[in-house]
């Protein structure tokens, strides 16, 4: 619950930052009107998400596991364990989405353990391919669903902890099992609707 509350806080902060950016009276010529450009918003949000997840990974999961107090596990609800860092991010993304502010983020991978985390669109697929070779910045673009348009930024997501590598290399459903620390395992897709 604390984690959830913590995540809610982070997400709220991110949205405030994003929201306030969108409200700025600037650049009328751009599709997103005046305010902070969505790539900047995505950067801000990504920075916060990265920081939060890193803190969770290093100072909660790794520490608890090293001290033998509690481990992180995929079925954390049943096993009385901590959510995996990836799950932490996915669940916080769901919470953010459920708040209905518009901004959404999720983790995607070309080699996902669950197909639901596979790239949904060609843009995402190509972005992941790009990031695999050149992982120094996000791949951004405008995508549409029906008549709706969204700004999407795909950030490279690296294996920040040994736990990430170990899990993906050993999970029975994992299609790729040769990850190393700091490898780009996939991407974080941040989607912001363009009204």
């Amino acid at each position, binding site marked *: 619950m604390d984690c959830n509350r913590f995540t809610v806080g982070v997400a709220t902060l991110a949205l405030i930052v994003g929201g306030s950016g969108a409200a700025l009276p600037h650049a009328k010529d751009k599709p997103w009107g005046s305010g902070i450009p969505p790539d900047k918003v995505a950067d801000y949000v990504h920075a916060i998400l990265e920081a939060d997840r890193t803190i969770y990974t290093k100072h909660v999961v790794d520490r608890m596991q090293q001290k033998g107090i509690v481990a992180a596990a995929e079925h954390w609800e*049943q*096993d009385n364990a901590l959510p995996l860092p990836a799950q932490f991010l996915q669940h916080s993304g769901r919470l953010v989405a459920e708040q209905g502010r518009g901004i959404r983020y999720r983790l995607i991978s070309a080699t996902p353990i669950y197909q639901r985390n596979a790239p949904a669109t060609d843009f995402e697929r190509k972005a992941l391919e790009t990031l695999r070779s050149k992982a120094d910045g996000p791949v951004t673009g405008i995508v549409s669903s*029906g008549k709706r348009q969204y700004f999407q930024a795909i950030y490279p997501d690296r294996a920040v902890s040994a736990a990430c590598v170990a899990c993906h290399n050993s999970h029975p459903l994992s299609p790729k099992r040769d990850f190393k620390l700091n490898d780009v395992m996939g991407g974080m897709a941040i*989607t912001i609707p363009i009204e």
Partner: protein
Amino acid sequence: MTQPDGRPRGTRWGLQTKLILSMLFVGVVPLVVGLGMAFWQGSQEIRDVSGESFKALATEAARKLDLLVGEEVARNSRIVNDETVVRALERRRDALHASGAPSAAALAELERRWRAQEPAVVKSITETPLSALLRDYYTGTHSESAQLLPQVVRTATKMLFLTDTQGVLVAAMTTKPDFLNHDARWWQGAYNKAVGQLYVEDVHFDPRADTYVFTISLPVMDSLRYEVVGVLHRVIDAKEFFSPYTHVIRFGKTGHVMLIDSRGVVMSCPILPTGVSLSDLSLVPLITPFQPGWVQASSDGHGGHQTSVIGFAPLPETSRATNGSPDSGSWHTFVWQSSDELFAPIQHLFTWMVVFGTVAVALLASLGYVAATRIVTPVRQLQQAARSIGRGDLRSAIRIQTGDELEDLADEFNRMNQQLEAAFAGLTSQVQLKTEEVQYLQQSTDQILDTVPTPILLMDPQEQVTYANRAARETFAIAAPGNLREPLFSLLPVDPATQHVLREELLARDAAALDEREAGSARDPLAPAGERSVPGRRGELQMAGRCYQYQWFRLPGRSPDQDRIGLVLRDTTDESRLQDQVIQAEKSRSLGVLAAGIGHELNNPLFGIMGLGEAIQEEQNLERIKTYAQDIISQGRRMARIIRDFTGVASRESCDQRVPVHLEEEVDKALATLRTTADLPNLTVEKHYVGGLRVLALPDQLRQAISNLLTNAVQAMNGSGRLTLRTTQGGNVAMLSIGDSGPGIAKQHLSKVFDPFFTTKGQGEGSGLGLTIARRILRKFGGDVRIESLEGQGTTCVVTLPLLPPDQEKEPWTATASPSASQPSHSS
């Protein structure tokens, strides 16, 4: 056979019974304990093993069912990921967005028409390309061959339809679905604020499907997977869907797998109908944790209340989606088998163990009987032998050949018997020998007693005379020498007064004996008891004109009751007569001597008087005559004094009462008398008197005794020499020693000087009775006399007499009827 502890024979258990019971006990107790422990341990093992097996089975079944549901979800996922579906719903979303949401009234109208199954409305929903697509997915047209919808799933699917973002029915295969679903829980759950999530609904009764169903609702995401554009809803008959998988897992007669949800509602069970709750809802928390496990519960959930072993496991993936989250519900498998069946093997085993146990007990009993018989038979032989030995009639040796301790024991018995026989033989001869000795002793004693002239009687405490020696038999005219048993006083012819006295003495003797026994003092059995305990009870009694001295003595028996009392009677008739004669003779002799002495004493003055008388006759001179007359008078006075002295002796002789006398005075008087009777010019007398010694005696007899001793001493010195008289006082005894300077007495004569008629003087010079009489008199007064002499150095005669206590002389003198003083004398 004796009963050592006096228990009734009924409760007595023989050695054989005890041995059999011991063996049974030793056998049965471990058997029962072992059986019990085996049963308990077996039950535990079976429970544990069954529990683990059930747990494994439940886990496996859960995994299978999880996969089954997962597959179903995946199948539906294909529909929701179908581009046609996504695009169609995106368009509908965009259209709704552009035209604005239809009003509630318009929707209600449409619903009414849908319910009324107006062909136009029905067609607009069931005849659309989307519905066709759904039908294709349902029939499997769109599936690859490996992914064909199984027949079971197809028939189990009761409804399959799509809604838009408003919950309005978009496409359906049949007309059963509701038109408006916005308020349905499943729709809210799957739409999830446009985020979308898998929503698996718990089993419930669906009136449209007319059965218990569960539903799977999947959101249709837009092409970006950004938001929900519709919801796919599948209603599945739970029993039909799950039973092919749960019902096939059967083991034994009752063992089966069932699927329940977190409320305890049965989703699929070969026994219970779908939709009902478990019979015991208290089981639910036990069996619905998120981990697989097994539990021993007090009921089985199927209506039974026996202790049951239940395995359980959650469906992990499905539970994650049930009602939107694991917290809202979960599905679990439940594996159970009836306890009767579960524990049947151990019951069976127990039955067999009981049977084997019974057989073992029977075997134990029979083997125990055989063993006990083998042990007990020789023991009984030994018992018989011991009894025979006890009776002394064991003739033949015991024969036991068991080759163990019993055989050794039998050998020991034989050896003991031989030794006993030998010992008995020795004892018998010894007893015979001793009996002969006793008989000889008895005969000797009888003979000795018979030769004793004194009558001796032995009687028991009841005064029954049991023995009389020959003298007694003759005296009392007892005929039978053998088995004598007569009352004492029927034998003794005494008057009643004497009888009374004797009986009292007898009683006093008994009491004294009793006291002595009670005092517990050791007593020399040879010492005559009566002599010590009742001293001086030597009485005299008159019987048939004769005088007897009698004395009691006690013969201690083996017990106080068997004590015997002896009575010795001594006929003193002749003795006392003789003694009186001797004393009389001595008196006469003394009188003669006295008379001679008196004559001699009187002759001189008499001749003087006669001469003076003649001189007076012839004398003229008056003066001279007066002088002569004066001499005559003085001579007459002398004679008168002499006569007075002797008359004084005579006057007291008749007196028979003992009076206190001064010993030293009596000695002086005796010496004076001696001097008057004999001319003793050369006799020197030395007196060493302590003074004031008083004794109780008859003065004349005492003086006579002393006179005899003095005469003896003077005669021993032939009238010339030194006579030493010495008195001393020692304790309560007065002592007088009379020493002479005579030649002494030869050693061989020393022991005989007190014998009557023993004398060393010539014929006619002495009677030989002087010392005898002196001693007799002195002993009569409780004293004694002894002679100490060394040949050539004179003789000393020592007289001892009991001293009169100083206080006694002040009391009025009471004469006693002399209790005959027979003090023990140690002088010869």
